């Protein structure tokens, strides 16, 4: 498959392949960091740093770590969370303000006008707060299934089926 060979080239330190992956995923990396930091300028800087890290760690990726996208988004989250902690927020992961994505969605918080929340609004249209919170914890905060179950005091089975229907709604909104 095309993505697979692109990743292989990248792991052989091919800069052209890396440039393509950057084009594919820069906005996603930046988006995740921005939701955590709520600081567009700093997020752009960290996004840059994250890609340098991805390059340096390229040989650490293999498919047992999941999708390539999952791997890089995980690096981005950890970098953003480290940044928050180093700013003497002293928060553990679970204490990060839980409602970042909900907040951005509801208040159309414009983050200094640098992001266009219309895209977000239309993707999350009709989703319950429960859904948005769950998506925030799993995709933006990097909680494991056990951590989510504990945080929401809900059994893993329920969380899985809820998540399935939440993501399905986003997919309908995309259509």
């Amino acid at each position, binding site marked *: 498959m095309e993505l697979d060979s692109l990743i292989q080239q990248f792991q052989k330190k091919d800069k052209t392949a890396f440039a393509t992956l950057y084009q594919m995923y820069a906005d996603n990396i930046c988006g*995740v960091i*921005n939701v955590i930091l709520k600081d567009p300028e700093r997020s752009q800087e960290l996004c840059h740093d994250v890609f340098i890290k991805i390059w*340096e760690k390229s040989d650490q990726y293999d498919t047992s770590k999941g999708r390539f996208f999952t791997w890089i988004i995980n690096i981005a989250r950890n970098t953003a969370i480290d940044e928050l902690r180093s700013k003497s927020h002293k928060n553990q992961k679970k204490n990060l303000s839980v409602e970042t994505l909900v907040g951005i969605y509801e208040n159309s918080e414009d983050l200094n006008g640098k*992001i266009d*929340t219309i895209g977000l609004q239309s993707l999350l249209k009709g989703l319950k707060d429960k859904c948005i919170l769950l998506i925030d914890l799993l995709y933006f905060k990097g909680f494991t299934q056990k951590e989510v179950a504990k945080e929401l005091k809900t059994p893993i089975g329920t969380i899985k089926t*809820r998540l*399935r229907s939440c*993501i399905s709604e986003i997919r309908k909104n995309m259509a």
Partner: protein
Amino acid sequence: MSMEVDKYIASGILELYVAGALTPEQNLEVQHYALQYPEIQKEIEAIELAILKLTASVSPKMPENGFEKIKAELNNTIQFTPVQSKRKALWTPYLGWAASIILAIGLFWLYSENRNLKSEIEISSQDKLRLEETLSNTQEAIVRKESLLEQLRDQNVTVITLGGQTVSPSSYAKAYWNREDSKVIIDAQGLPEPPAGYTYQVWSLKLDPLTPTSIGLLNDFSGENDKLFVLENPNTSEAFGITLEPDGGSESPTLEQLYTLGAVGR
């Protein structure tokens, strides 16, 4: 073996997989099914696409020359900031010279200390990276081995000992056959390295009349440290045999090159 693909997809496990919220063991399981069932692979990609759209929608766009800046940094990870002195206010020429020589020596000393420290930091962070990598590789190896062990211990597994034959009497192998899963794990520790250009081929045999069916090759024999090979076997086998065949395998077994053979017990 059949799996309820729809039920698996509906369970929500693929959404967790894309989030990276599963254990390495579960990741391997999902990948295993995705390879087997294209519907699952397609579903994973559709879920990922939704998350790609969502994460991109909250992005402050990266500058146009974003990648250029990254590229410029890729080769020179260590950067020294040159130390400069621009002092000029001197009391007297003599004192000034003396002071600037002392200052220069001091600065040089600081500079070299700084450089040593920087290279030490660089070395320890490289060590750390290497250790992290070793740890993660070890963890993966453990997960793989645990999953193999689990497969070997399955109560549906029949163990068949394959003894050495005329061409190589000291050879032996074991087959762990799980009829429920239609899988055979071949432990080929007791076989010699195949000569260049040849590969071992495993056969499922019916005995009366003798009917061999190929169930696969032991590819990359020397690269496989544990010499454990997982093969599909949907046949109702009465015996298993391993022959040496030219690379790529043969239509039917070369019986003069039969290394090991063993019948399935009752």
